[in-house]
């Protein structure tokens, strides 16, 4: 069979081209009949020489003369040999699966497109898109394409396997033998090329050196190729090793790893900074270090920094105390086991720690205690106050030669004289009455303050202030004399003149002060029914005393909602007093109080308790008054700069207000004596209560001993030295530094701190704050 002669078939019959389908049938008919050598005269029929698998394992040789048509040898089969004696049309060897195809002329576009096996030998050049989408199936040898001349454009697109050899014979050396944009998308296979290979896709393929093994393979194959196309004479000219180059597909890994683009860092150094100058875009205006900083930074790069604000804020209790007692500092002493010192400290601020702080004061300090915020009981300052009863006299400063007269020995006047004495000045107390203590001793009911306590403290005052002149009538002349005899004068005459109602029958009523004074001496006889006009705290005191002295029906009336509060009100209610408002008094008769609506409130005694006004008849004209009270400036100085005024003579207030004003006036006078400005240091701002962490304390604790109060005090704004911040700091940046004189400080190492504010969040006392770092 092998030597069987060629059977000649024509693609034309009766001078007409036969259809591709019919020629196909004829060829297959002969193959089935055992013919293995067929010469076909083609007239452009499609797919001549393809799909000859009916021949089985036999070798089949198809020779095509004439026009071969498109896709000659497509689906080519192992054992098939196709020889095209002239040029070939498009897609020679398309989807070749094993055939050997020889073209003795040029081949146009698409040579071997999609081929997976077989060999195609082209004796000329090829058109565009040759060797595209070729593959290699590992079960078989790879497909091979041998081209004597060169390739057209887009050679080897998406080539996934196989070997192409482009000999570049007779090619213009300047033009690429692989045409325009070859090997785009190449993922496998190799290309041997002789000549200029510029322009292939560097992204997909790379030139590699030709090894001896490659060279031997090429030379062996070349000899075969040249003999197939009958151009053996070209062998020597094509066998110059240096003329050949080998291109290989890049591996997938290489494609992802390798970047033919320069790195941005290189671009920045070599191009960007070179054109713009060192430091880039704004290097001439600002120096910015290269690279980025971490999100969490330390040192100068922190956005926020912690500050230990020890002593920068005033505790709410101290800020609320009109007398200005540094309440929480005293509790701090208690915590440090300096209980005696804490108690004694009271006398530096007030002559009446027990009487006022312990008993009579409504305790604004406790009302403002931070603990109230969480419904926790305020720290009980009354314990500390009461403990002050037994404290011995404080030491005074060295004596000065200055003399100050204080007119009025009530709580305000005593406070002023007390403070002046502490500071070494000589204070003289004048009073028209025969006792000291003013309203504390004369009008405040005994139920509100134990007699012993008051007496002890008054005795201490008398010891401390030797020059107390009682029973001193005071008129203008006396006042002028005092004013000129003394360096300074403080008017603390109080408000002793009761305000009475301008209604008919007012003579049937008694003032609250007169009633209380008489009651205190058990001389008042109120009868069964008492009506009190004015339902303030003094009115309540009247009610309590009236009850003590036998009254059964006690009514407090007011034109508005009663102003009474606290202990006084509770006491009045406890004795069954009733509050009525609004009630407007028309007149007072023997029967009682007649209201404007005609109602008569029957009373054995009518007490008017609508406040007191000062009796200022003794003042000379240089002292300005306003609405019945002495006019003072912010330093409690009157219109005469050497005369000060405090207490109820200036305006109604609490006892603690009067004590505070006395202290303040004394401080101002002391500063003036010292030749200083009357302004002392500005008071510290009150601490923001939100800064305090109360969660460290048992909210149900109601401390009733000094020790417990000390430990439950949140020490607002004053470091408890607990060291919690040191423990909490995640970076270990906080250190406790021991300073001289028992002092200490918590200090932050900026190189460790990250500015998280944990110290602030954990601090029980609100000492730590987190503030914006200074601008860079």
């Amino acid at each position: 069979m092998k030597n069987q002669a060629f059977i000649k078939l024509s693609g034309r019959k009766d001078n007409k081209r036969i259809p591709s389908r019919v020629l196909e049938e004829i060829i297959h008919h002969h193959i089935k009949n055992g013919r293995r050598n067929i010469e076909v005269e083609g007239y452009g029929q499609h797919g001549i020489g393809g799909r000859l698998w009916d021949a089985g394992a036999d070798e089949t040789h198809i020779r095509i003369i004439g026009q071969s048509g498109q896709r000659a040898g497509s689906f080519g089969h192992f054992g098939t040999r196709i020889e095209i004696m002239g040029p070939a049309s498009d897609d020679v060897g398309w989807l070749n699966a094993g055939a050997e195809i020889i073209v003795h002329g040029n081949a146009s576009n698409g040579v071997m497109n999609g081929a997976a096996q077989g060999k195609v030998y082209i004796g000329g050049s090829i058109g565009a898109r040759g060797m595209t989408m070729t593959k290699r199936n590992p079960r078989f040898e790879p497909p091979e394409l041998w081209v004597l001349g060169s390739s057209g454009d887009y050679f080897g697109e998406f080539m996934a396997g196989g070997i192409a050899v482009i000999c570049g014979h007779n090619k213009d050396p300047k033009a690429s033998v692989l045409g325009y944009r070859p090997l785009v998308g190449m993922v496998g296979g190799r290309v041997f090329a002789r000549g200029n290979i510029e322009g292939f896709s560097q992204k997909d393929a790379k030139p590699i050196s030709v090894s001896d093994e490659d060279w031997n393979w090429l030379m062996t194959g070349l000899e075969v190729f040249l003999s197939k196309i009958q151009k053996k004479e070209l062998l020597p000219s094509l066998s110059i090793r240096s003329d050949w180059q080998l291109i290989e597909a890049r591996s997938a890994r290489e494609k992802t790893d390798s970047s033919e683009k320069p790195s941005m860092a290189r671009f920045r150094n070599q191009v960007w900074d070179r054109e713009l100058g060192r430091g880039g875009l704004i290097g001439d205006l600002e120096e910015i270090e290269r690279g980025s900083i971490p999100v969490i930074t330390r040192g100068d790069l922190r956005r926020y920094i912690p500050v230990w604000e020890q002593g920068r804020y005033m505790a709410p209790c101290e800020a609320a105390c009109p007398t200005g007692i540094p309440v929480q500092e005293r509790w701090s002493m208690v915590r440090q086991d300096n209980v005696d010192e804490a108690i004694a400290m009271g006398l530096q601020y007030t002559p009446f720690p027990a009487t006022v702080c312990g008993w009579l004061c409504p305790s604004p300090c406790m009302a403002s205690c931070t603990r109230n915020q969480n419904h926790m009981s305020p720290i009980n300052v009354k314990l500390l106050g009461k403990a002050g009863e037994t404290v011995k006299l404080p030491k005074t400063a060295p004596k000065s030669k200055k003399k100050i007269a204080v007119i009025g020995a009530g709580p305000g006047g005593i406070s002023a004289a007390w403070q002046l004495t502490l500071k070494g000045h000589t204070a003289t107390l004048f009073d028209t009455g025969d006792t000291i203590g003013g309203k504390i001793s004369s009008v405040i009911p005994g139920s509100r303050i134990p007699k012993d306590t008051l007496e002890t403290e008054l005795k201490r005052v008398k010891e401390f202030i030797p020059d107390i002149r009682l029973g001193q009538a005071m008129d203008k002349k006396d006042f002028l004399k005092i004013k000129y005899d003394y360096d300074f004068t403080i008017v603390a005459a109080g408000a002793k003149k009761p305000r009475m109602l301008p209604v008919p029958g007012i003579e049937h009523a008694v003032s609250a002060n007169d009633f209380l004074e008489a009651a205190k001496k058990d001389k008042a006889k109120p009868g069964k029914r008492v009506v009190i006009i004015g339902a303030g705290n003094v009115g309540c005191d009247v009610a309590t005393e009236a009850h003590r002295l036998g009254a059964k029906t006690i009514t407090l009336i007011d034109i508005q909602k009663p102003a009474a509060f606290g202990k006084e009100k509770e006491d009045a209610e406890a004795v069954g007093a009733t509050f009525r408002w609004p009630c407007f008094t028309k007149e007072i008769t023997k029967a009682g109080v007649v209201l404007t609506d005609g109602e008569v409130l029957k009373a054995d005694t009518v007490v008017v308790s609508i406040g007191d006004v000062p009796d200022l008849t003794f003042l000379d004209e240089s002292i300005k008054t306003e609405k019945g009270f002495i006019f003072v400036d912010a330093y409690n100085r009157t219109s005469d700069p050497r005369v000060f005024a405090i207490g109820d003579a200036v305006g109604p207030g609490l006892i603690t207000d009067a004590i505070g004003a006395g202290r303040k006036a004394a401080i101002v006078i002391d500063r003036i004596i010292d030749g200083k400005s009357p302004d002392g240091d500005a008071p510290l701002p009150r601490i923001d209560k939100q800064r305090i962490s109360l969660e460290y304390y048992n909210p149900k604790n109601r401390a009733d001993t000094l020790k417990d109060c000390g430990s439950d005090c949140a020490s607002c704004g004053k470091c408890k030295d607990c060291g919690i911040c040191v423990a909490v700091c995640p970076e270990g940046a906080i250190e406790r530094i021991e300073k001289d004189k028992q002092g200490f400080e918590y200090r932050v190492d900026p190189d460790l701190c990250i500015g998280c504010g944990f110290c602030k969040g954990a601090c029980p006392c609100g000492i730590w704050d987190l503030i914006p770092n200074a601008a860079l």
Partner: protein
Amino acid sequence: MSSNRSLEPSALSLNDLPWQIRYSNDRCTLCGQCTAVCPVQAIELKVFQKRILKTSVQPEKKHTADYDSFYGIRQKTRVENACIGCAMCAMVCPNDAIAPVKNPGLDRLKFHINQNGIPRRRGGRRNSSQSVLDRIKFIRISMLTDPALDAGRHEFEMRTLLGRVLSPRENMKRLKEKGWIPPVREIYPLIIGGMSFGALSPTMWEGLQMGVAYLNEELSMPVRICTGEGGCPPRLLRSRFLKYVILQIASGYFGWDEIIHAIPHMKEDPCAIEIKYGQGAKPGDGGLLMWHKVNKLIAAIRGVPQGVSLPSPPTHQTQYSIEESVAKMILSMSMAWGFRVPVYPKISASSTSLAVLNNLARNDYASGLAIDGEDGGTGAAYTVSMDHMGHPIASCIRDNYLNLIKIGKQNEIPIFAGGGVGKNGNLSANAAALIMLGASGVQIGKYAMQAAAGCVGTEEDRCNVCNLGICPKGITSQDPRLYRRLDPEDVAQRIVDLFVSFDTELKKIVAPLGRSTSLPIGMSDALGIDDLAAAERLSIKYVV
């Protein structure tokens, strides 16, 4: 929070806040990183109290109720410390113990963010994820009809023209008569829109510029970037990179004396001059760079003293009509560079934009029109302007393009579209849709910030504090402690990634249209939308 407190109207609970911190005490290491990094101090360490009850029904056993304290992270509820959802806490937390979660619907903060009578201002975006552009599909795919192109294999010329293109007849006439022919630039159709030096941090600005230079010089992509109104660093003005830059002039004229001083020293002409009349995010409103942001660097670049507030009014003074704005302003700016540089206005999308376009059409010096839609971003604006003012970009571009067709000048004046392009991440699809609706190119801003610098802003009112200078990523801050978090080199690299990938995607869209050498500008037969009204309004196909 104090339990013994009175309620103020603006006292908020955690439930009222738009972003809520989800925190796990069990996982927390109390390392302090979250509180250190939080840009608004929304979280803090707190001491908490716990009541431990031990009880028994056995009468002989005593009941106890003890208190104990423990530490944890607490979210603050004050208006000024409300969490902005940036999730920097989650980013730094070593144990994934903390993260903000969007309140699904009980946000009451918006009723209280006008303390002291100052309405809310913010940076960022409109905070609406709706997008007509996202709904537009490319329905014309070549299936054996046109020469189907392969985005991966074929060569594409993704270029557009910025400049006035004369009609062929007019062009020939002027060539013959040696008349003036308007300058035209062939540029990449995706432009980085105007974001000023000042609105952006120095590192961000440099990163964007560096990326653009790289794209031009290493990858031959003629990408252009607009300076925004804040001047231009002197070094850039005097470098060859200036040709990649569109200089913006706006009502504040900041930095323009420095630009004028630099003109004699310029190696290259700038790409173009953009005259800003409006911003899509806050149409009809101006800008104000607060004095505290005007540091040494900003002051030098804008040519002003340090520490003064810099207002950009809503309008240009001395320009009282369209005619005047177009004629006077465009002519001046063209003259500055000897009529070699294209000059075009940028306006907020508006129902009045056709009037502007028609005016430009009559003026040879006008090189184009940029229109910024309501979804554009801003460094600072009143919320009411951002949320409720402006015009969607798609219909505005379409109206303008169809108007150009009507007057036969669709190939003569390019329209550039901006505002929300890629706001939901679909950059190339949005850009291609706008191009096919009639835009010659698109401008992006927020997308670049998100892709190139990791801006955390979303359409869910996340972060949006660009106006406060506390940008957690250092993109819009002038504080070196923040902007040094950003390395310009990284930004530049991401800009390159963005453009290269955009280029691939754009090709994927235009290849099936058989377009490889010119952009499918106005090729609206390729577009469809599943909404009849929108399809009719945009004159595109209704597809369901």
